[in-house]
């Protein structure tokens, strides 16, 4: 399925845009995570990558729909 993903912080640089469409094999957040890291290997170095689905922290087992609002929010440290 095809998912539209909003990116923040370092993930935006790594994925080359503030909104990225990605095709995943599978149906849950874990499948999305795998596809993301395979497509954008640098994401693995963020180690803690918050995936929010419809403004809620998403567990890996959560099922996804194409209409879901997905955001990738890595930690940032600036102050």
């Amino acid at each position, binding site marked *: 399925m095809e998912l539209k993903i909003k990116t923040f912080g370092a993930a935006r640089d790594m994925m080359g845009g503030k909104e990225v469409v990605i095709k995943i094999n599978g149906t849950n957040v874990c499948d999305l995570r795998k596809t993301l890291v395979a497509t954008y290997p640098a994401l693995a170095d963020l180690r803690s990558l918050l995936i929010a689905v419809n403004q809620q*922290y998403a567990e890996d087992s959560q099922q996804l729909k194409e209409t879901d609002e997905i955001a990738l929010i890595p930690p940032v440290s600036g*102050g």
Partner: protein
Amino acid sequence: MTKVNHFSQEERERYSRHFVLPQFGESAQQNLLQSRVAVVGAGGLGCPVLQYLVAAGVGHIAIFDHDNVSLSNLQRQILYTAADLNQPKAQVAAEKLRALNQHVQIDSFVNQLIASNALGLLKGFQLIIDCTDNFPTRYLLNDASVLLDIPLIHASIYRYEGQVAVFNYQRSANYRDLYPLPPRPEAVTNCEEGGVLGALAGIIGSIQANEAIKVLAGIGDPLVNRLLVFDSLTMESQIIQIANKNERKNILGLIDYDDFCNAPKKTTDMKEVTVQELKALKDSKANFQLIDVREPHEFDICNLDGELIPQAEIPHNVDKIAKDKQVVIHCRSGARSGNMVKWLESNHGFTNLYNLKGGILAWAKEIDTSMPTY
């Protein structure tokens, strides 16, 4: 029993806009007056936080910062002027803030908060405000907040974006529930490398001050179990519900945070060339390929005439990378290009890749000192 102070005429006038504010009034002002708050970091976030908390009449504020004021701070750290250059931030800030409100007791600490002193120094505060600029101190403050049972007002900024949350408020979710592990140092840039919009620090710092005042005064709904994510370029914000995963049970004491945040990468025997070796390759017109994995705006500042393939584009452009001759890959400092060399080696079987040691920064320092850097 806490001592109830009676406000003087001067204070009544000073705080009159609070006194007439619905849900606030004299009792909330009394709460502020009796509060002790630790503000860690007196930089981009710390300046607005300190100004609003002192102006609002928080009774006792401790400022922790071990840095001096530098010229590049003045773009966003609005407590300081050019006359303050090279002076300790905590002391300069304290002096200016005392002039703003003489009713507030302001202490300054110029020693760095570290694992061995943090619990002692932070004990007894009602609130810790994290205005720092690095992951080790952020995890240190989070863990200290959990161990001392003091709520933590977190904010962080990056380029045009900011995040704010209230952690560990009546045992609510903490920073580790959100981000259990810090990113690898080479994966993220700080404000110095990545840039930050000055006014963004003011916006996010003001939101942070607002959350602090809400918690201290006991009004409204603070960002508990929620993370505010703000993008100043689009003016879009999201509030993400955070799961409380009870990470607090794993926080048993303070640890070595530099070590925790510098988790070594699995090393392979990556090949490198120095900038001198690259210059020799260029001068001899050797048959090799030079690839620059930085972003286009970085390329515009300075470049080595390499082929620009930003790191995110590498997976889609593997076919553009030669397999039959030497390939040198570079970025700003050597971190991103090193990652790309390792990724290409392990995923696509390359054996002819060389990382440029020290990146274009080393070139600017050792080969072409007239080259602009960033």
